[in-house]
């Protein structure tokens, strides 16, 4: 029997390039991170990552990221909804604006947000509470940099939802709220969850935008990525790597959970026998 021949061309070349790229750009830095960790004993590793100042930074980072991604879940869904469901003048511009947080240098975003939300700033002066230089500032910065994740994952799925499905719910007498809850939301739920998860993972590691608005007060407004940079500036590479590994493991676990959930969901939707 002869070996089955591959009809699609370029398999070896493209896979080869992809693997080399993944190795150089992704795995090599990760490998050196693990290499740095090898210099640490378990006891030392544990004492670094459970340092009270670091523990405080985890709490601040996770809570702010959670709040920011929850906000983005709602706001991003709204933006995607508006962009898919309606036609209005300036739609293309709004669509393009959604990518701005990706295009803008995060430091610029951070400085702009801190200026706007400072107690004398254009927005800050109208608010009765402190945003810039508080943990709320961290939330705003995180929300700003990660909103495209939600919009860009929900948008294509929403576009795929045929109008007839919506119309079917209406002709069956469902109210708008009922149709949204029972028909549209379940349809976009996996995408919404993925987008929110990506936004959360991104927020966990956000540095550039956050440090300009956070105020960076120990135990109060220090994020974990700042702790990594602080260790680096002290040339304590193993400690920096240890803290970074916590963020890395948290993000990887999150992505894994989302992927498993999504795979299960799609298997259900597309029928159990294939896929």
């Amino acid at each position: 029997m002869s070996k089955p021949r591959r009809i699609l061309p370029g398999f070896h070349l493209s896979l080869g390039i992809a693997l080399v790229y993944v190795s150089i750009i992704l795995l090599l830095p990760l490998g050196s991170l693990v290499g740095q960790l090898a210099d640490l004993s378990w006891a030392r590793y544990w004492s670094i990552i459970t340092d009270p100042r670091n523990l405080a930074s985890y709490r601040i980072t996770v809570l702010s990221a959670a709040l920011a991604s929850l906000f983005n879940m709602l706001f991003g869904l709204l933006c995607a909804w508006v962009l898919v469901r309606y036609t209005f003048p300036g739609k293309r511009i709004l669509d393009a604006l959604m990518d701005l947080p990706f295009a803008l240098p995060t430091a610029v975003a951070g400085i702009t947000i801190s200026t706007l939300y400072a107690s004398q700033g254009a927005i800050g002066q109208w608010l009765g509470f402190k945003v810039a230089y508080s943990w709320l500032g961290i939330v705003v910065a995180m929300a700003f940099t990660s909103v495209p994740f939600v919009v860009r994952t929900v948008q294509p799925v929403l576009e795929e939802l045929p109008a007839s499905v919506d119309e079917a719910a209406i002709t069956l007498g469902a109210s708008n709220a009922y149709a949204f809850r029972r028909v549209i939301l379940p349809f976009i739920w996996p995408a919404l969850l993925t987008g929110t998860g990506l936004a959360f993972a991104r927020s966990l590691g956000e540095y550039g935008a956050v440090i300009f608005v956070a105020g960076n007060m120990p135990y109060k407004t220090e994020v974990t990525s700042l702790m990594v940079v602080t260790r680096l500036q002290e040339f304590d590479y193993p400690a920096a790597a240890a803290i970074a590994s916590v963020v890395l493991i948290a993000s990887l676990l999150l992505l894994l959970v989302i992927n498993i959930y999504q795979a299960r969901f799609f298997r259900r939707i597309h029928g159990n026998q294939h896929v």
Partner: protein
Amino acid sequence: MSITVDQISRQFGNTVALHPSSLDIKEGELVGLLGPSGSGKTTLLRIIAGLETPSAGRILFSGRDVTNLHPRNRRVGFVFQHYALFRHMTVFDNIAFGLKANAHRLSLGRQEITERVNELLGQIQLEAYAKRLPAQLSGGQQQRVALARALAVRPEVLLMDEPFGALDAKVRVELRRWLRHLHEQLGFTCVFVTHDQDEALELSDRVAVMSQGRVEQIAAPAQLYREPANRFVFDFLGTTNSFKGEVRDEQLYLGEQGTLRLPKVANGAAELVTRPHEISLSHSPSDSATLPAQVSAIAPIGAVVEVELQPFWEAPNLHVTLSPRDFEQASFAVGDTLYLHPHRLMLVDPHSTALTPVS
């Protein structure tokens, strides 16, 4: 519930999807809207459902004006072309959707909903599939689920957009018969859209033939086939043979070669049309068989034999169908010259394209 379409029209920008059209659909009637794509049939159906707003005109349900009533409150069942099933819900939940969404208004308990859905599952013969998801069903099964979902809320009007368009030929025929029975059982008023003339003629009590945003004719299937109002309807319902020539003294002259006796037809240019089964063939010319043509193809297709002939005058090929028995008795082959005798002809009016029988 009867449906009255009163001078309904629809424009999209500068293009007219539907010219002012009127239809009267009686209670319990099954009406097919038949036409090619772009004829406005789906637009008309969606306007009846309230999914599209008309530019002008009124829709009445049993005399009540519903033109401005939201589709949610019209209480029509609508079956979409690609079924539009809720793919994350089981078959049971799909069918129960309308009942659950209106549980309050209909004052239905969980028990009653379950009973009614099970009853419908029985009617569509899918009891064993209640817990499956739509993706696990065949096209025909999905179609039946879509029907059951629409019928669950007991609408008095059922509207269907190309209900069998995406199915295999055999499944289509089965489903048609099944739908016909279901309709007899439940007695709802039903309007459906199709581009398949067999489907329209088999299923409908009456067929409305549409073209370019107009209703060309509405009639019972037999009458429609027998007395088509104009050339478009005639062409759309089947294969057309056309004889174009010059009438002089009750004789139609087709070029040099053929003449045909046409009593009581005025002099001048004339076009006559006929169906493939309304022509008989013979080996030698006679008083009635006067049109010579050469056999160019013979195709036995199940119950009939289709014969294609090239006329001796300048004209497109003609098509004749024979029963296999007649074909055996006639015994001819490709290349033979035969003489045609059309026994039923319709004269086409050159301006209105209206048809009048000649005999």
